[in-house]
């Protein structure tokens, strides 16, 4: 096991380096590196045996402070590279994809809706009743996501849905300047039916990347 310093990558940005916080994960400094017009925020550090939850949250804080200023392509936590050379090589290899996406998503953020269904007690019924109940639940979720989508249609640039074990997860690509309106319009929409609708965001538009 080497004790050499490695590199923790936070995110890729477009243009000159953004303002970055001074202190990153495990107290490491935060730096930027440029490859043509792509910037990458990272921390040189000696990786611990194991990262903690606190480290993950610190990662988020650094990421957020950059994302508050501009669009980013975040790296999953933790993404550790050997050195700056490897990072540069990665940026070079992915240059077209990253710069294309960042240009396209320049003023956009991702808002998320988690729609969860009421859990049903289904044992002891007939197979048909069981399946009908599942169908009913599925329809209710779909109806709710449709309602939300319609209520927000003037603000949605793109929309994606993904089923989860307890319902639906929806991703809306929205203009950064429309975030407050998005929240208000959703709250005013009175979407009915499912047990709960959880609104979360803004997040970097990771669902709408092309790589």
């Amino acid at each position: 096991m080497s004790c050499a310093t490695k590199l923790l990558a936070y995110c890729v940005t477009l243009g000159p380096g953004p303002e970055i916080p001074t202190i990153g994960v495990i107290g490491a400094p935060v730096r930027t590196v440029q490859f043509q017009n792509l910037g990458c925020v990272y921390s040189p550090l000696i990786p611990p045996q194991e990262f903690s939850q606190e480290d993950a949250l610190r990662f988020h804080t650094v990421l957020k402070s950059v994302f508050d200023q501009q669009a980013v392509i975040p790296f999953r936590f933790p993404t550790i590279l050997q050195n700056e050379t490897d990072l540069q090589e990665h940026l070079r290899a992915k240059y077209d994809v990253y710069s294309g996406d960042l240009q396209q998503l320049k003023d956009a953020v991702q808002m998320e809706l988690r729609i969860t269904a009421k859990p049903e007690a289904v044992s002891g019924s007939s197979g048909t009743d069981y399946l009908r109940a599942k169908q009913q639940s599925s329809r209710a979720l779909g109806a709710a996501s449709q309602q939300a989508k319609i209520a927000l249609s003037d603000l949605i640039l793109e929309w994606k849905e993904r089923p989860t074990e307890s319902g639906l997860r929806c991703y809306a690509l929205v203009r950064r300047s429309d975030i407050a309106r998005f929240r208000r319009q959703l709250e005013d929409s009175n979407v009915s039916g499912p047990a709960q609708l959880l609104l979360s965001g803004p997040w970097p538009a990771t669902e709408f990347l092309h790589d």
Partner: protein
Amino acid sequence: MASPNVIAIGPDASDELSLLDILDHVLNAGVVIQGSIVISIGGVDLIYVGLNVVLTSVETALRTIEADQPKKLDRKK
């Protein structure tokens, strides 16, 4: 008048639900670099990080297979 069952959480708040949401994003969203060094994360159900990827890919595979069948009318948006 707010809808009674809309709850807003987000990357700012510090309640437990938001913390879970933050961890979910930090650990599941974002680019993966093949060949990057693997460091484990303590205190988190790391196993499910990979399973989310499998869920996505199997689901995508199913949708792709279904898109191939001409009789299928149902479409996910």
